[in-house]
């Protein structure tokens, strides 16, 4: 199993490297004058020259990439165009806010979804199951920013007026409620559905039937026989949903004007702040790959066939 995990880790690193290549190619190795393309037609010659310098555009592409990659590996992500601050410093507080937002959403969504999913499985084909199935289907269909706007329309200043719709620096904790709720609603449906499906599959398996035929109590059947076999697939879906959060947070932060990496990315795009764009995209892809990797490892570890195979 250790070997399998090492292989996955190596592959994760390889993917990250490929991503860096793509990011670099998309932002810098463009045909023509990248600086002109990035800054647009009406850029001043001074800014163009400054950009060419910062991006090492005078060097051959391969050298540019090596220097860029070297910088990243040493933690030097370059300086932001808009205010000249080092990118790492620029991003520090927004990374913290974004992680807090994602963490809160996960904290709210996961237990509730697991409970609803398991309960639906036990109440299969009864009214609760139908309602939760319909509910998750509807919520899962609607794009998350639309869910957010619907929440604002209903609960925000134009509707019931319970919560503010826009984040402000001086605002209180209640302004976190709508963004967290929106993200939680976005990640919950797949977890609910996976939990339900896995529980049903496990409960209908022959080994659970055999446990019941042995006369084992229903509680033992659930906790000893069913639950350990359901953990693997469900944990993987939870991890995948958390990975999704890394990308999904962008539109939500934009909508609520929440000061996180997503909003930084949108601002950077607005200002054509290339080092910032590169950093945020790499960061998000990095988190995405890392969490996917964790999901893989959990999947492996939860399977006794893999766990004790190499003894």
């Amino acid at each position: 199993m250790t070997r399998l995990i090492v292989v996955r880790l190596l592959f994760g690193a390889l993917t990250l490297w490929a991503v860096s290549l793509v990011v670099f190619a998309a932002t810098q190795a463009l045909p023509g004058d990248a600086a002109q393309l990035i800054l647009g037609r009406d850029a001043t010659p001074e800014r163009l020259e400054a950009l060419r310098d910062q991006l090492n555009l005078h060097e051959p592409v391969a050298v540019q990439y090596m220097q860029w990659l070297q910088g990243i590996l040493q933690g030097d992500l370059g300086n932001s165009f808009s205010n000249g601050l080092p990118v790492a410093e620029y991003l520090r507080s927004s990374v913290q806010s974004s992680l807090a937002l994602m963490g809160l959403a996960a904290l709210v969504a996961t237990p509730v979804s697991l409970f609803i999913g398991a309960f639906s499985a036990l109440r299969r084909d009864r009214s609760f199951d139908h309602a939760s199935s319909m509910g998750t289907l509807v919520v899962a269909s609607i794009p998350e920013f639309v869910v957010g706007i619907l929440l604002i329309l209903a609960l925000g200043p134009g509707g019931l007026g319970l919560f503010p719709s826009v984040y402000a620096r001086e605002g209180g904790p209640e302004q976190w409620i709508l963004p967290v709720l929106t993200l939680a609603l976005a990640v919950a449906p797949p977890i609910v559905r996976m939990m339900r499906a896995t529980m049903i599959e496990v409960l209908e398996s022959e080994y659970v039937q055999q446990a019941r035929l042995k006369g084992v109590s229903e509680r033992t059947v659930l906790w000893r026989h069913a639950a350990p076999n359901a953990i693997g697939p469900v944990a993987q879906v939870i991890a995948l949903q958390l990975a999704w959060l890394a990308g999904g947070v962008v539109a939500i932060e934009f909508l609520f004007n929440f000061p996180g990496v997503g909003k930084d990315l949108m601002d950077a795009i607005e200002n054509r702040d290339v080092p910032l764009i590169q950093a945020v995209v790499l960061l998000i892809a990095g988190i995405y790959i890392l969490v996917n990797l964790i999901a893989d490892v959990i999947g492996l570890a939860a399977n006794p066939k893999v766990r004790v195979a190499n003894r």
Partner: protein
Amino acid sequence: MSGPSKNTTPKASVRRRPGLFRTAWRFGRTKVGVALTALIVLIAVLGPFVAPYTPTEFVAKPYETGVDGALFGGDNLGRDVLTRFMWGGWTLLLLAGSAAAVGVAAGTVVGIIAGYRRGWVDDVLMRTNDVLLAFPQLIAALLVMSIIGPKVWLIVAVIAVSHMPRVARVIREATRKVIEQDYVKAAEAIGLPRWRIMTVEILPNVTSPLLVELGLRLTYSIGVVAVLGFLGMGLQPPTADWGLMINENRQGMAVQPWAVALPVTAIAVLTVGANLITDGLSRAAIGIDRGVEK
């Protein structure tokens, strides 16, 4: 089970099982889904012909409501909200539709080839897929849009490319299940060319997951096209587009909710409708695929 006489089968077993669409239609939710989708498609397609004004005509003051002749008032610049709503749907449908179609088609080709040929072909295709999958869909789109600029063909291409590996993964799995079946080996034993095996023996037997995937990708495409518009990275002003409308009018949501509520509701109804159809199809497909085996 078979009765005592072997050469005459009882009448009951002769009838064919109903197809995917007919099975799906039996679920109430599929009917609701079709109705919801049809409603929005109708608005989007017929809207431009029946809209009271042109989409760039100024009829009111910015965010003004209760104007005569403008049922839902004016938008951020004073254009008629109803007119822009009726004009703003078809671009979304067209972009999402073509992105889903291209993405699913490409994913199917890649998935079938990777699943059937195995070996290094499979490795190369699937590793490329993994790299593409390392980008969250939206981030990939934003990266490309922000550098090259929002162009219509680029929106379609980026979304299609982001769908491709996801579809390929599903179709590859389905293909693997099909090629374990002996009818594929029977075709190989008589030396049927590989491309014929892929088109004649495999493709018709992965149509169920394919249709489900098409529905799913269509729903996602609608979401991504809309969110790109909303982030200002999709179609550009002064085009009337639902996503863009939300972006333009969200500052005035408290005073003039209609300019946001109309497109938001339309997108919600459309995606829910499309997903209901997909859900019906996938429920039907599970039943049908189960029937194929013993």
